[in-house]
């Protein structure tokens, strides 16, 4: 399968957007997952609901909300531009932000399940052996929830790779900036005579998604033994 330079550029952009989205979201998602799994505090239900919002809202609405908040005239967007000179609309950073927000609920869900699956009595045992709460977290909870971190990362990556609605609404469909794989496929379908290019990009999307799944499956097996699974 021969890809044109433009198609390679689309793939590179998609990978860059998805990887940035997942890497930035990973620690945030884990912290949120831990809070919801292990702590009881006022507003916990509200936080949980807010995290899940992108999962249940139409992606276009999520994109529109991002535009309101992070757009050049939005409260956070104007502050970012004034303070750091960063604008998020119409560039690849914006596409990564949209992907990250859409991936967050899936990542939190996977990590939360695996944190809840860690036997809290093991943490108690670690404490009696002299571990501070943080040390017990680092040596017990974190390594034992590793499969959930891997699962969350792969789900988030796949979700980011496929992100369409929020991206096109918030970051627009600009070639070389925000035209990721799904947007490129969509654009290709808009013009007749692009069937081959669309098929090539679709095959690439399938290969990338499957590849992410297999890599994380391999990572989990290596750390947890052959019976462990990502999903």
């Amino acid at each position, binding site marked *: 399968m021969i890809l044109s330079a433009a198609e390679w550029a689309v793939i590179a952009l998609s990978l860059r957007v998805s990887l940035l989205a997942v890497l930035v979201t990973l620690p945030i998602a884990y912290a949120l997952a831990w809070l919801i799994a292990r702590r009881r505090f006022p507003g916990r239900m509200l936080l949980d609901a807010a995290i899940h919002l992108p999962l249940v809202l139409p992606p276009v609405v999520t994109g529109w909300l991002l535009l309101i908040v992070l757009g050049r005239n939005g409260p956070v967007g104007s502050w970012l531009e004034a303070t750091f000179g960063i604008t998020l609309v119409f560039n690849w950073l914006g596409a990564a932000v949209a992907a990250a927000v859409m991936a967050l609920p899936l990542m939190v869900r996977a990590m939360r399940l695996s944190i809840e699956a860690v036997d809290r009595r093991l943490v108690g*045992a670690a*404490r*009696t*052996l*002299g*571990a501070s709460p943080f*040390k017990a977290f680092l*040596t017990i909870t974190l390594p*034992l929830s590793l499969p959930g971190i891997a699962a969350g990362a792969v789900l988030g990556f796949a979700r980011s790779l496929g992100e369409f609605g929020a991206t096109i609404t918030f970051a627009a469909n600009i070639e070389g900036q925000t035209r990721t794989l799904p947007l490129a496929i969509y654009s290709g379908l808009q013009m007749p005579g692009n069937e081959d290019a669309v098929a090539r990009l679709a095959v690439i999307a399938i290969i990338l998604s499957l590849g992410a799944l297999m890599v994380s499956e391999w990572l989990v097996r290596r750390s947890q033994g052959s019976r462990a699974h990502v999903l």
Partner: protein
Amino acid sequence: MSFDIDLQLVVGETRIACAFNSSAKLTALVGPSGAGKTSVLNAIAGLLKPASGRAAVAGDVLFDSANAIDLPPEERRAGYVFQDARLFPHQRVEANLAYGEKLTTAADRWITRGEVVELLEIGDLLGRWPATLSGGETRRVAIGRALLSAPGFLLLDEPLASLDAVRTERLALLIERIRDELAIPILLVSHSASEVERLAEQVVELDGPTSNATQGRSRDRKLKF
């Protein structure tokens, strides 16, 4: 004084009161199942916060509601051997043994890994994963892990339960050795009369959720050796 305990616990809907003091090397806490024996151990280890009371072991005050003392578990120096062992499943036996040891300072340590391995005869198990150990092996590793955390006292929760006769005998001999050779107080929870008869110098009876301090204390009895 090895153990100086006067604790009131609320676990769910039930109230547990437990009061005793003991200078014995090995004190047994007995009583019907559901009496709250494990809850008392958890409270002494700092894993369960008592409603009120006081707990001092070997002269160190671990908990005192009147003076707002409530040491976190990691500062109580309890060598807690749980009934379900709670070995860390993602670490091999050797790493499990080293877990508490690495968190102590050299000055606090009173037993080496080599001594523990020899005492418990677990040299062949060091490279194994906890999931591959038998019940008796798991218990011995759990005891070793507790000893290596340089504890000031031991809490043993049903250490001989659900083992076959040979393993029970082997572990009982081991507990006798720990009792006689290591100079730290031991509190043992058991429901087996013969086990208590054999190992304990002093017996404290906990008679269920309604038991109170005076009952607990009045039922103390010294065993003759």
